[in-house]
C-alpha cells in the first residue's frame, strides 16, 4: 500500500512504512473516504429521523395492540415490560401468525405473537451498523435503545431515504 506520508509503495499489511517508519496500521482498516461511504461510517443513527413509537405490554391483547398501532398511524409496536424492551410486534408477525386464522384477538396476548429479543441499536452507532442489520438480519425495523429502554425505531424506508439524500444525486 502507498504510504500517505512519503508515497513509498509498501507491501500489503505492513505495520510501519519501510521508508519513513510512519505507523500504517490505521490505514489498512476501512477509513471514511468521502461521499456516501463517509456518511455511513461517521454519521450516527441520530442523523436519521426516528419513527413514532407505539408502546404495548406483553400481556396486552393483540386487539388492543392493533388498535394502538392504527391510532399512532404506523405499522408496528414496541413491547416493553418494566420500561425495558422485550419484543416487537410488526405487520409481518401479524401476517404470519394472526391473519387467516380463527383467533379471538381480544383474548390472544401480544407475548404469543411478538418477535422476542429483537435486534436493537444505540443512538451513537454509525449508520453502517443499521444497514448491516437490515441487509443481513433481514429486518425492516430496528428499535433504538438506551439502557434497555426504547427511544425510537428506525425503518428501512428512512435508511433508504437517507442514502438517497447523501448519494449526490439531485433530489
Amino acid at each position, binding site marked *: 500500500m502507498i504510504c500517505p506520508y512519503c508515497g513509498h509503495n509498501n507491501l*500489503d*499489511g*505492513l505495520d510501519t512504512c519501510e521508508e519513513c517508519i510512519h505507523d500504517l496500521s490505521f490505514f*489498512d482498516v476501512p477509513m471514511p473516504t468521502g461521499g456516501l461511504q463517509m456518511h455511513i461510517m461517521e454519521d450516527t443513527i441520530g442523523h436519521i429521523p426516528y419513527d413514532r413509537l407505539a408502546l404495548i405490554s406483553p400481556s396486552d391483547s393483540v386487539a388492543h395492540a392493533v388498535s394502538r398501532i392504527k391510532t399512532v398511524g404506523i405499522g408496528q409496536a414496541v413491547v416493553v415490560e418494566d420500561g425495558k424492551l422485550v419484543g416487537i410486534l410488526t405487520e409481518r408477525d401479524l401476517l*404470519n401468525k394472526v391473519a387467516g386464522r380463527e383467533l379471538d384477538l381480544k383474548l390472544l396476548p401480544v407475548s404469543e405473537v411478538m*418477535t422476542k429479543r429483537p*435486534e436493537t441499536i444505540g443512538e451513537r452507532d454509525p449508520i453502517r451498523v443499521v444497514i448491516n442489520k437490515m441487509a443481513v438480519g433481514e429486518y425492516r425495523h430496528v428499535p433504538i435503545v438506551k439502557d434497555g429502554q426504547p427511544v425510537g425505531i428506525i425503518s428501512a424506508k428512512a435508511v433508504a431515504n437517507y442514502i438517497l439524500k447523501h448519494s449526490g444525486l439531485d433530489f
Partner: protein
Amino acid sequence: MSENGHTTNGAVKLTRKDFQTDQEVRWCPGCGDYSILAQVQKVMPELGIPKEKIVFISGIGCSSRFPYYMNTYGFHTIHGRAPAFATGVKVANPDLQVWVITGDGDALSIGGNHFIHALRRNVDLKIILFNNRIYGLTKGQYSPTSELGKRNKSAPMGTIDYPINPLSLAFAAEATFVGRSLDVDPKHLAMMIERLAAHKGSGFLEVYQNCNIFNDGAFKSFNEREVKEDRMIQLEHGKPLVFGKNKDKGIRLNGVTPEIVTIGETGITVDDILVHNENAHEPNLPYILGRMQFPEYPVPMGVFRVIERPTYEQMLAGQISTAVETKGAGSLEKLINSGETWVIN
C-alpha cells in the same frame, strides 16, 4: 424477518441469535470472514437441527477462529488436522452434523494430506475453505493459492511458487460435493451453505474471501459489481452456461478446451452452448470448469459436482453390525489380554 415462534410440533424454532456467542469476534475490521459468519448463522436455524447436534471443527488461521463464534459444539484443533479430528468425531457420532472450517494455508499447505483423505473417504463432512490467497493470521506470507509473482513479506521479489487450484484438488480427492462461492455475495453464499448442509457425503465449498489487510482486492478483478456479470458465470444444473450483461456469451467445448462464443454471431445459437450437469458420475466436465480462470475465462460459481455414494461411516457401521452378527459382540478386555502376556515386577 426474525420470528421466535414455535414450529408445528411444539419445538422452539431457533433464530440467528441462538447461534451467536458472547465472544469478541476478533477479525480485522472489514474482513470477509464476518460475511461468511453471518450467512452461516443465518442458514443454521433453517436446517432444523438442534444446536447440540452441530459441531464446528477448525485448524489454525484466521478462518479457524470460527468455532468460537458459533454457539454449537466446536473444536479448535492443530494446524491442518481439522479433517482428521472431524473424521473421528463423525465416525464415532454419526448423528452429529460436522462442519470443518479451514483456510487456504491450513488445508492446502500443512493440511494437504488430511484434506485429501477426508474427501476421498466420503466421510459426511462439510468442509468450507476460506480462500484469501495469503497467510492472514501470520501477517502476510504467501500461501499455496497465491498467484505466481505476487510480492509479499516472504517473497519480496515475487513468489516463484505455482499456485494450486483447490477445486482441482477436491476433484482429484473424489469429493462428492464441490462448490464455490464469494464472501461479497451473501445470497449466493447462503444458498451454497444450504446445499452443502443438505449433502450426505464429503462436501467441499471454496469461498473466495477478501483479506483487506494483507491481500486486499485479490478477487476484485472479476467480482466487482460493474464487471461481475461479464467475468463470472453462475452454474445451474441443466441450464446452458451463459453469461454476460446481456446473457449473450456462452461456453462451448472445443475438444477438451472450453471456448467463449457469442450467441447470435457466426451462427451460434443457445443450443451450441454447454449444458451444466452436476450429477455426472465422472468429474471430467466439472474439472474443466474448475480450471477456468480470469482473464481468459469467466470464473464459475455454484455447485460444480454433487453425487451420492455410500458414506464412510455408513459402510463402517454396516461392517461392524455384520461382524457382530456373525462373530459376536466381542470384548476389548479379552482382546488385550489374549495371546502371550507377561507380568513384570
